[in-house]
């Protein structure tokens, strides 16, 4: 056995190679079984899967509402539902998609599963807190669903006062649900930051941290700092409704514009909660499928943090026409353009990563290219909206609706699907049907553009959002958009179909089907209950594709399975030893 020196403290450590099993007998799904083991599990992988199942459910609930909204808009007047029903549907579509799907999608579902694996940790720092986060999410969701059935809400997902403090329905219940979900979000953020700081494997210095972890780190910072403001705001709305304390309602002496400041102070950074982890997914996949070192590692890592921090200072760009001071609008517009720069830097770095790569156009990468185009359009139309004079015309029109969906669905959902396909073999141990995945990606891409490109035109022409009736001039645009939404829905159903099918009939996945150098691929598929049978030792960065795979499969020689029992010491099949520096 050779020795290696860890560069920081010159301590000598002995390492040996641990080659992953392709199909181990014991893994995280069969070591503990039964419903009770799932409900009480503290395993980050199982919690990740439970999140995945929950958000998938809510994605289809929110998607169904979107289809109903689009169907109603087929004709300029009433098509098949009443105005009040329509108003509730678009409110719930927004609230469900944002609070129950987008915010937890990548961090809580994929992040939970992957983050400890990428760090070489046995679990997150606070496994029980992690389970509590999930149950808070679930409790909040149930409260929100109860609100839907106990009167409904028709305020729009923004809950603008004084409309929200005066309208009927279950606004208080709904805001309480969102309030509870907010705590789930905060606790996940605390958990992830601690995990990244304290649980990294030996040798995993900050400059070797996978960019997905950097993305989650930046996201967690926003979750911790911004979500409490939402909680406070919703609590104030509830106090106004229940106790009649005048905070936002001018009839009680409050200020409705104050609400908008509070709300967007959370909800603008929340947009970055939704998209920044997606950036992390993109970096991982681009590098893996072009077999190339990521270009501009620090630029990408630090731009995530830059977005997280500048993102806190731009909330006023939602309020250019709200009556806020002209000077304030100017400052917010200026800062908004600054936040565009780190985002642009990422796009250029990802593109440069492809240069001289060995590019395999597998389905995860195909989804990433879908992301590229759609997010680029979403980002650049964000520049349009950041310009005050143009925003005055486009604010609260379908242009904003299209822009938001290009960023959130075109950007985030595409990145989420890319990540889901990329890590699917590791999560389920099965390969999905690659041909169907490519076709579905194409259908989603086409359906998405057919749905939302016409909305840019409608919005520029002046079609306001949240309209039940509209003037006939816009009918053809609405109809194209509605047809597009059906195509889009079909694409998502197809993804659901072949992914679920793969669990039962899919080919067995190998431990590292993509040939990735990242740490999560250097353990068996399915992963062991405690992730690593050894304490992994990191000597190379996760994107060092110019080095052979053997150097990425190192573990601490004498630490056994990581539990510290010498008796558990395992030697790899080959019994091969390696030295590394």
């Amino acid at each position, binding site marked *: 056995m050779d020795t290696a020196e860890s560069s920081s403290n010159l301590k000598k450590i002995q390492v040996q190679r641990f080659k992953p099993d392709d199909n181990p007998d014991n893994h995280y799904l069969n070591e503990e079984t039964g419903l009770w083991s799932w409900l009480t599990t503290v395993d980050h992988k199982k919690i990740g899967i439970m999140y995945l199942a929950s958000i998938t459910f809510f994605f289809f609930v929110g998607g169904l509402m979107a289809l109903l909204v689009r169907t109603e808009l087929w004709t300029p007047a009433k098509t098949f539902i009443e105005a009040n029903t329509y108003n509730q549907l678009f409110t719930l579509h927004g609230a469900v998609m944002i609070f129950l799907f987008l915010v937890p999608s990548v961090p809580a579902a994929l992040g939970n599963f992957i983050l400890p694996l990428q760090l070489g940790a046995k679990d997150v720092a606070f496994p029980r807190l992690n389970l509590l986060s999930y149950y808070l999410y679930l409790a909040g969701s149930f409260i929100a669903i109860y609100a839907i059935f106990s009167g409904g809400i028709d305020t729009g997902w923004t809950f603008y006062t004084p409309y929200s403090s005066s309208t009927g329905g279950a606004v208080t219940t709904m805001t309480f649900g969102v309030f509870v979900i907010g705590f789930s979000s905060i606790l996940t953020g605390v958990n992830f930051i601690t995990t990244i700081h304290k649980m990294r494997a030996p040798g995993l210095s900050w400059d070797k941290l996978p960019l997905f972890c950097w993305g989650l780190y930046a996201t967690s910072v926003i979750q911790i700092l911004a979500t409490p403001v939402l909680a406070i705001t919703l609590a104030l709305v509830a106090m106004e409704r229940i106790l009649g304390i005048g905070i936002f309602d001018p009839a009680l002496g409050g200020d409705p514009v104050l609400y908008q400041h509070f709300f967007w102070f959370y909800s603008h950074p929340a947009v970055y909660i939704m998209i920044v982890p997606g950036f992390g997914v993109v970096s991982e996949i681009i590098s893996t499928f072009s077999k190339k070192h990521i270009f501009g590692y620090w630029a990408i890592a630090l731009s995530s943090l830059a977005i997280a921090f500048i993102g806190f200072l731009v909330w006023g760009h939602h309020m250019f026409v709200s009556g806020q001071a002209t000077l304030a609008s100017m400052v917010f517009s200026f800062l908004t353009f600054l936040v565009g720069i780190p985002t642009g830097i990422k796009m250029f770095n990802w593109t440069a990563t492809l*240069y001289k790569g060995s590019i395999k156009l597998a389905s995860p990468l195909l989804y990433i290219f879908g992301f590229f*185009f759609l997010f680029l359009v979403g980002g650049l139309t964000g520049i349009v909206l950041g*310009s005050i004079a143009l925003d005055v015309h486009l604010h609260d029109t379908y242009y904003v609706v299209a822009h938001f969906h290009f960023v959130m669905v075109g950007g985030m959902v595409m990145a989420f699907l890319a990540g889901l396909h990329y890590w699917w073999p590791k999560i389920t141990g099965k390969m999905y049907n690659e041909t169907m995945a490519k076709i579905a990606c194409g259908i989603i891409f086409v359906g998405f553009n057919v749905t939302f490109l016409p909305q840019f035109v409608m919005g520029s022409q002046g079609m306001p959002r949240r309209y039940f009736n509209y003037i006939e001039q816009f009918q053809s645009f609405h109809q194209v958009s509605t047809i597009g939404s059906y195509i889009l829905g079909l694409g998502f159903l197809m993804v659901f179909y072949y992914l679920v099918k793969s669990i039962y009939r899919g080919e067995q996945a190998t431990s590292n089907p993509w040939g990735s150098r990242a740490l999560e691929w250097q353990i068996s598929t399915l992963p062991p209950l405690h992730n690593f049978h050894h304490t992994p030792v990191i000597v190379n960065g996760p994107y060092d594709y110019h080095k052979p795979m053997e150097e990425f499969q190192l573990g601490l020689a004498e630490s056994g399975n990581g539990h510290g029992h010498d008796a558990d010491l395992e030697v790899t099949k080959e019994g091969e030893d390696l030295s590394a520096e």
Partner: protein
Amino acid sequence: MDALNDFFLPPAKSTLASQTDTLFWFVHLSSLALTIGLIAVIVYFVYKYRRKSEDEVTPLITHNNKLEVTWSVIPLILVLIVFAWGYEVFMNQRVVPDDAYEVNVTAQKWIWQFKYENGAQTTGKLHVPAGRPVKLIMSSNDVIHSFFVPDYRIKQDVVPGRYTEMWFNAPEPGESIIYCTEYCGTAHSDMLANIIVHEQEDFENWLAENAGGASKPDDLPPAEWGKQIAQEYACNTCHSTDGSQMVGPTWQGTFGSEQTFADGSTVTVDENYIRESILEPNAKVVEGYPAVMNTYQGQLNDEQINAIIEYIKTLK
């Protein structure tokens, strides 16, 4: 370019609209160029560097400072241009010329009301003179609304408890649509109005004719006048006169009928009930309808309310 302009943007009918449009096209066309450029590079790379064998080893390229500074600084300069340009046009939109003609705008669910210097008052139709700056001083009686005229490229929220203002100058006579663009409840999408731009002389005539109030009872029987008031106050946004179901109960056949309220009590619709419903709409809300109507206290005088009651009586 004109065809493209007509496809994407509504006609430019104010003096400032073309400033917005020029910026609109500058940002969109430069974005389009960037998108096409970047996508072309990606497509080229994907083809050129496609994987030919599984054993390919790629070169180690970690970063390039010159390149990274370049693609940070150039976009920064571009967005700063867009920022400064957008701000300049915005300042033009915000700074009201001194000689502007002032009109007061009141928004409430789901009507727009306009009041003029000489007491003239309209609902749903904003009459303005052509070629003269017009300043709108706006406030809301209930929730937040937003005053949007696509043809003028202007928009401003109308907030309860404070005044907001905006201005425009429409050089040519004509009509433009006004939307409410801040979601305000059930009939939000019906909260439309029109701007009618007159030649200066026609406008002055119109103003003089309507001095002291929009309605002239002299030569009209009360029921006719009531119908006119009902139209001006857009009562028909919520109350149909043909029995069809809308946000509020229909007026057809309502007089003399028995209405059941949310609390189970009933009343026969008479003059007192209608009067109360106009002045204190939420005192007795008919079962199955939301309590969303605003009071018209201070907006309609007793004579006008009498006329509306006479009008409702005729709807059998």
